[in-house]
């Protein structure tokens, strides 16, 4: 198993444990005690602070990524399909 060369134990968590909890941190589903632990680790670990920030920004960047409109005649085609 690959692991970063200098994984750190900060605020009772290893970097790998923070990596595993990132989706819950970004999605707001961590329990309060876990959230406090993760944030304490991130405050003391530059790598996790950078990577966590990057992860959150990637997730945020996806919201506006698709802007294509459906073909204009969707409703007319459905009417033709559904009407006997």
């Amino acid at each position: 198993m690959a692991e970063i060369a200098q994984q750190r134990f900060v605020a009772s968590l290893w970097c790998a444990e923070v990596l595993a909890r990132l989706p819950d941190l970004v999605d707001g589903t961590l329990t309060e005690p876990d959230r406090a632990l993760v944030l304490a680790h991130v405050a003391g670990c530059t790598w996790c602070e950078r990577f966590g920030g990057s992860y959150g920004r990637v997730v945020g960047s996806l919201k506006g990524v698709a802007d294509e409109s459906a073909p204009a005649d969707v409703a007319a085609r459905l009417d033709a399909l559904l009407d006997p």
Partner: protein
Amino acid sequence: MLGEDGLIERVAAGDRVAFGALVARWRDPIWRFVRAHTPTPALAEEALQETFVGVWRGASGLRDPAAFRGWMYGLARRQAARASRRRVGEPLDAEPIEQLGVAAGWGSEARGGAVLARIEDHDAVRHALAALSDDDREVVWLVDVDELSLAEAADALGLSLAATKSRLHRARLRLMAALAEGGTDG
């Protein structure tokens, strides 16, 4: 304006005007989803139509209007897969998270910097999305592009909540790896 629950109840009762309103509300996001998961616009159009035909025919069987989004996206997903002749429900991969993290820039300033440099470029993000496997792209699209809840995405994918969360995390890391690589296809 009728709320979505009310619209769905009317569609379930056979109201074509309500169905038209529902189609108008959802055609663009469902189009973008099926377009991202089918190889050609023609197949995407087929999947789009069949999704809404499925909504019309199946709405009366939906017990809880709150489950509508997950159910509808599940229909769209299966129609896109059928149009593309793909199997759905592929087995989950077991690649270690730490390995995916390293590829995504975890522990590497250079690689992490490459990801950040490309985040603001919508074209680069779209390329990276297109470079993902169908399974990875689906889950990222449902939750992060179309903002379905994890429960709705799990419904659409036919997976447990835990499996959906795991798939989503791996897919996001692979997306970051694709951005770090330049977001180009193969």
